[in-house]
């Protein structure tokens, strides 16, 4: 899986400085889809904006991310994808007929991957342009089309593990995933992740059509999700409406342009440079990098543990600060304005006098403390 490369020009200079000598981390559609995972976190927004490899940073800091993929899962995923695409996507075609209810006689199959890398985007453009203007009737499958998306003023190239299907000038994004659909149901968080990712492609394809002077709405907001059915390898296709994910994505991309505000608040000399050596491994003293990161505001929540490479670093920071964020968004919200554990407990046992605005939470906490004491006596 490779990903996104962007041209640094224009407003990206400050971000480039944040990155320093570290090569820009390629974003894929999943990374873009993940922008919405914790938009309130300035640290993450800056790292993502600058294109820092968070995984490498986390490892260098001594807090490697807890994510890994089993070789069995990878093998299974690849095997399933090739099964779906076997014989010029014969199986895929069968499903598209069913799920779109279209009498698709036959389809052409273009694998854009066969074109040299530097030509792929241009080639994709040309193919899509022709198709959008296209003759009705003939369906076409475009495998690995190289699409692009404007992110914070620069162009990001998405290298898609995706298929675009076109019939009569209308496009559907096809997303192949190896989690199972069992009796019509699938893991809702897996489906959500697939939908967010597919939305990135829908948006990119729409942008391309628009740029080429076609109606962007020729790209359907219903994406075709292809998964193994039940316990077998046989694929099944389901339509997933990604309008909500599209709306979220648009919002997040708009926010990216507002990074300037965050950048303005940063000290001039701040950089997240990993200072990679000749072997590509970071050489910057980890403590220095940690210091730099701590100068940006993180918004740690336990959900980060499944969504962000830096999660263990930020959790450790929250622990050192004794932040009630550790206990989850709900607890934090319930405590009103009280951010620290120490403070909350002080208010509860009466050793701390409530500051202005803390009278109510203090009263509630004292009451809770009284009840706990009484019941556990």
């Amino acid at each position: 899986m490779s990903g996104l490369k962007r041209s640094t020009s224009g407003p990206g200079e400050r971000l480039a400085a944040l990155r320093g000598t570290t090569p820009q981390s390629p974003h894929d559609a999943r990374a873009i889809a993940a922008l919405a995972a914790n938009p309130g976190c300035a640290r993450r927004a800056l790292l993502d904006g600058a294109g820092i490899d968070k995984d490498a940073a986390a490892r260098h800091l001594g807090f490697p991310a807890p994510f890994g993929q089993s070789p069995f899962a990878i093998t299974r995923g690849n095997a399933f994808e090739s099964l779906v695409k076997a014989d010029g996507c014969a199986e895929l075609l069968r499903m598209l007929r069913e799920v779109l209810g279209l009498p698709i006689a036959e389809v052409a199959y273009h694998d854009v991957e066969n074109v040299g890398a530097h030509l792929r985007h241009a080639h994709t453009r040309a193919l899509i342009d022709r198709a959008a203007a296209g003759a009705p009737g003939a369906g076409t499958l475009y495998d690995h089309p190289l699409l692009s998306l404007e992110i914070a003023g620069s162009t990001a190239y998405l290298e898609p593990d995706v298929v675009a299907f076109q019939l009569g000038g209308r496009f559907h994004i096809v997303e192949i995933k190896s989690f199972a659909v069992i009796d019509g149901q699938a893991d809702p968080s897996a489906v959500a992740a697939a939908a967010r990712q597919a939305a990135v492609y829908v948006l990119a394809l729409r942008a391309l059509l628009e740029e080429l002077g076609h109606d962007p709405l020729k790209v359907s907001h219903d994406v075709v999700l292809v998964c193994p059915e039940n316990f077998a390898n046989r694929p099944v296709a389901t339509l997933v409406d990604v309008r909500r994910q599209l709306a979220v994505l648009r919002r997040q991309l708009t926010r990216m342009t507002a990074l300037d505000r965050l950048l303005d608040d940063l000290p001039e000399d701040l950089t997240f440079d990993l200072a990679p050596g000749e072997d590509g491994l970071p050489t910057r003293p980890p403590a220095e990098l940690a210091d730099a990161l701590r100068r940006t505001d993180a918004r740690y929540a336990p959900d980060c543990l499944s969504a962000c490479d830096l999660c263990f670093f930020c959790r450790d920071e929250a622990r050192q600060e004794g932040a009630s964020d550790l206990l989850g968004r709900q607890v934090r919200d319930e405590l009103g304005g009280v951010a620290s554990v120490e403070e909350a407990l002080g208010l509860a046992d009466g050793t701390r006098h409530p500051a202005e605005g803390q009278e109510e939470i203090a009263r509630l906490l004292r009451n809770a403390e009284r009840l706990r004491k009484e019941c556990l006596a």
Partner: protein
Amino acid sequence: MSLLTSLARLRALHEGVAQPIATVRHCHLSRRPMVFIPLKLSGEAAAPLAAMLGTDRDRPRLLVVTQPRNRDQRFAWAAELAGVLLPYVESFLADTETVERRNADPYERALDAPQLVVPNLGAVAFTRLLGRSTRFRRTDGPYPVPEEVPLLGRWLTYLGERASYPGSSLMPAATEELGRHWATGQSGLEDANLAALLHWITDGPTDDAEDPLIWPPAGPATDPGFDAEVLAPAIDSGSPERVTEALRTQLEPTWRLMWRAIDLLAGLPEGASVAQRWEQDRASFSGMAAAIAEGGPPQPRRDGAVAAAARLARMERAQAAYDVQRAYDDPLVMAEFRLTGEAFAGEVVETDPGHTEGEGRSRKLRPLVVVKTDDPVRLPAGTALGTPQRRGQGAELVSAAGGLVTVKITKGMGRGRTPAPGAVPEVGERVCYTSLTDDFQGSPALPESESTPWTHGGPPQEYVPNDDDAQEEWS
């Protein structure tokens, strides 16, 4: 989660050890629980890899699929699992009691029932999928499976379904039960890690719990690092022993944790309503056994319209009862309602045990009790109340002001002119009253499935298990 639990979490974080959020145990614990730790093959929906199980903590059984992609081995594994589980389940069928019912024939209820204890909710879901992938199999025809496999599938399905039934203890998940009784200083998400949760409760938190090399995950998913560096080479080596030993290293630590979890729960006194809920579990278990004995078909893939509505009604009823019962059984749970003003507790400062209402024949004994409380009462006058101290009684809130609450006892006073001894609390007694009551009225009938109305798709096609189901690939 209430502020009371949040406070317990804060305290736990500060003290470095989990804090109790229950004073009694709210689940039934069997004298002979079966611990069941299943592992699945990564990337697959329901391909079993291994299971460690048994009723004797010193003698776990380890069942392994040494070539996970081999279909025959999977069914052999399922048959082996059946060989351990089915005798355990069936051992509870012999001893029964006859239960009389109104408007229905008496039935036989097992005196005890199986209890399959699993590590976490993932294990429950995986058990359900194992059930789903085996219950439609046939022992004859083109793809025969060992005889006990479809029966195992039906029991696994049953237990997995029952696990989502509020208050049931037939298939408890250790993390859930522990989490209901202790608050840790970490988030609910992190509590799903059995090793982490248990360390919080016993020795205090440790990051080792998140290190798969020290504490392998409790399943059903295995550690990706283990898959890559140990399991894959072992499978490729073609040595069943190597695969078995590799998986043993992943399961044994969790096995020890499971029994520790059971011991911890056993250390708590049982809540007053636990036996009643277990009785419902026993009845449900006997019903399932009877359905199998009568030769009924395997459970359908999904609920039909009528079955869904019926199940929802049962689950909602069970949830409501469970919530009320826990509060009545446990002052610390009741405290959550006291905190929000839906309950109050305090000392009786004044009574009028002979207070009556009405005249002549309709004159009724309605004793008054005044309670002094520090709790913020947020109940309007006229609210119907119940009390854990006298569960048969009903009361009504008359007035509440300045920390004094007047309560009128309206139900359960009998027909006498004076209250029976002990029926009215004495001055000085500590009492608790709450608007939380469990007065269920019964739910109205649903149509028969074959009379499903047009609004819901009309009568469904009757499900007949077919060869396709029996032959469904399992790969």
